[in-house]
C-alpha cells in the first residue's frame, strides 16, 4: 500500500493545475512564470543580489517541500523520514547562509520577484516516491549541475565568499539526491508498483514543464530577452551526479539531453 496525501490548495497557470503557494510575507512578490522574474545576465551588483535572492527562495521552497513530506507521510520508513527531516534542516541552513550573504551585499528580502515553482509541482504528487523522484532526483539533481557551474561563476567574479557558500551547499545537495536515489531503489524492490508512481510523477512534471517553459524571444520583468542559451539546461555536473548515486547510464542520458555539455570531473581534469 503506497500512502497518499492530497494537495491542500491548487492554482491554475497556463492551463496546468499546480499546488497553491506556501505562506510568504507580504513583502514578497510571488510570481508563477520565468517571464515575470527579474533576472539579469552577467554579474552586476543588481544581478548578484537577484541571484542570491532567487536562490534563497528556492532553498526555502526545498525546506518547505521536505517539511511537508515529513508531515504528509507518517507511515514512511523511519530512516527515510530521518533523512528528509535532516534535509529540511540543511535547507534551512542554506536559506540562512544566502539570506546573510544577501544582506552583506546590500540586498533585502522581497527586493525581487520570487517563484515557488518546485513547491507548486511537487505538492501535486500525492505519494512519497513520486515526490522524491521530482524534488530530489530531478530538481535537486538539477541544482547539482547549476551549483557546479555557479561556484565557478562567482569565483571568477571575485566573490570567493559566495563561491565557498555554494560549494558547501552543493555537498549537502549531493547527499539529498543520494538518499533519494537509494530509497527509490529500495522502495521499488519492495513494491514494484512504486515505479509506476514514479513514472506518473515524471510524466506530470514533463507536462508542467512543457506548459510553463520560457519561450525564446520573450521579455522578462526587467526587459531582458530570453535567449536560446538561457533556456538551455545547465552543463551536467558528472562527478556530482555520480557521487549522488546516479548510474553512468543515467548520467549519460542527462548528458544527451543537455547536448553533452558537462563540467569535466576533477579526476579527469588532473590527468
Amino acid at each position, binding site marked *: 500500500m503506497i500512502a497518499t496525501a492530497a494537495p491542500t490548495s491548487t492554482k491554475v497557470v497556463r492551463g496546468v493545475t499546480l499546488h497553491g503557494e506556501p505562506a510568504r510575507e507580504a513583502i514578497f512578490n510571488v510570481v508563477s512564470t520565468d517571464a515575470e522574474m527579474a533576472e539579469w545576465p552577467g554579474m552586476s551588483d543588481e544581478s548578484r543580489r537577484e541571484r542570491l535572492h532567487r536562490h534563497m527562495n528556492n532553498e526555502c521552497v526545498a525546506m518547505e517541500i521536505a*517539511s511537508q513530506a515529513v508531515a504528509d507521510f507518517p507511515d514512511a520508513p523511519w530512516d527515510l*523520514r530521518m533523512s528528509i527531516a535532516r534535509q529540511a*534542516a540543511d535547507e534551512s541552513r542554506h536559506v540562512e547562509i544566502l539570506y546573510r550573504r544577501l544582506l552583506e551585499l546590500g540586498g533585502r528580502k522581497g527586493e525581487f520577484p520570487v517563484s515557488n515553482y518546485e513547491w507548486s509541482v511537487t505538492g501535486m504528487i500525492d505519494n512519497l516516491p513520486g515526490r522524491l523522484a521530482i524534488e530530489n532526483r530531478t530538481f535537486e539533481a538539477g541544482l547539482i549541475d547549476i551549483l557546479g557551474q555557479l561556484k565557478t561563476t562567482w569565483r571568477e567574479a571575485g566573490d570567493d565568499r559566495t563561491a565557498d557558500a555554494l560549494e558547501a551547499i552543493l555537498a549537502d545537495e549531493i547527499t539529498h539526491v543520494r538518499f533519494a536515489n537509494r530509497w527509490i531503489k529500495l522502495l521499488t524492490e519492495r513494491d514494484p508498483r512504486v515505479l509506476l508512481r514514479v513514472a506518473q510523477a515524471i510524466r506530470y512534471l514533463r507536462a508542467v514543464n512543457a506548459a510553463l517553459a520560457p519561450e525564446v524571444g520573450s521579455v522578462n520583468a526587467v526587459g531582458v530577452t530570453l535567449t536560446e542559451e538561457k533556456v538551455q539546461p545547465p552543463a551536467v555536473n558528472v562527478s556530482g551526479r555520480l557521487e549522488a548515486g546516479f548510474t553512468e547510464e543515467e548520467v549519460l542520458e542527462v548528458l544527451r539531453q543537455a547536448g553533452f555539455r558537462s563540467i569535466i570531473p576533477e579526476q579527469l581534469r588532473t590527468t
Partner: protein
Amino acid sequence: MTLNVRERADTIGTLRHISVFAMETLARWVPTTPELEAKIVLGRHIWEFAQHADGLGRRTHELRAAMHYSPAPTDPYVAILEEWRALTATADRIGTLYDAIIPDLDARYAAYLAATDVFLDEPSVRIVERNRADLPRMIEESRALRKERPELAASPAAAAMARRLAACTEYVSFRAPVGSTAERLA
C-alpha cells in the same frame, strides 16, 4: 521505588511519541508560517526532534518493547498537543513551542532521570541527557529570532499552555503489568 523495565519502555516510548509529534508539527508549520526568519528556526528544529525521537526509539527495543515503540500519552496530554498543533499565529506557535512545550519536555526528562535507576538504566539516562542538552540551544535560537522579529515575542497562548502542561502530571499510559488480569484480557 524506581521504574521497572516495562515502565521505562512506556515512559521512553511516550517521550518518543512527543518528540515525533513535535517534529511533525514543526514540519506542518514550516510551509504555513509566513515569516522567513521563523521558518528558518522551525525548519532547523525538525531535525533536532527527529534525532531525539531516533535515540529514544532505539532504546525502547532494548527495553523489550518494539523498535521505535511510541505509545500515545494520556488523553489530557494528547488534547493539549492537538490544541498546540492547531495554532495559526506565528507568535503563538513560537511562544508555545519555546516557552511551554520545550521547557515542559525538559521537566519530564528531568522527572524520568529522577525516577529511574541511573545505573540499571544508564543507556536511557545518556540518551535523555543528550536530548536535554539540545533544548537550551533551541530556546536560545528562538530568543535570537524574537530579538530580530520583536512582533513574534508576545504570545497570549504560551503562558496558558505552560500552566496546563504543568498541571498535567500524569502523561504516560502505562501498560498493565505482565501477568495481570488486564493484560490477559487485552
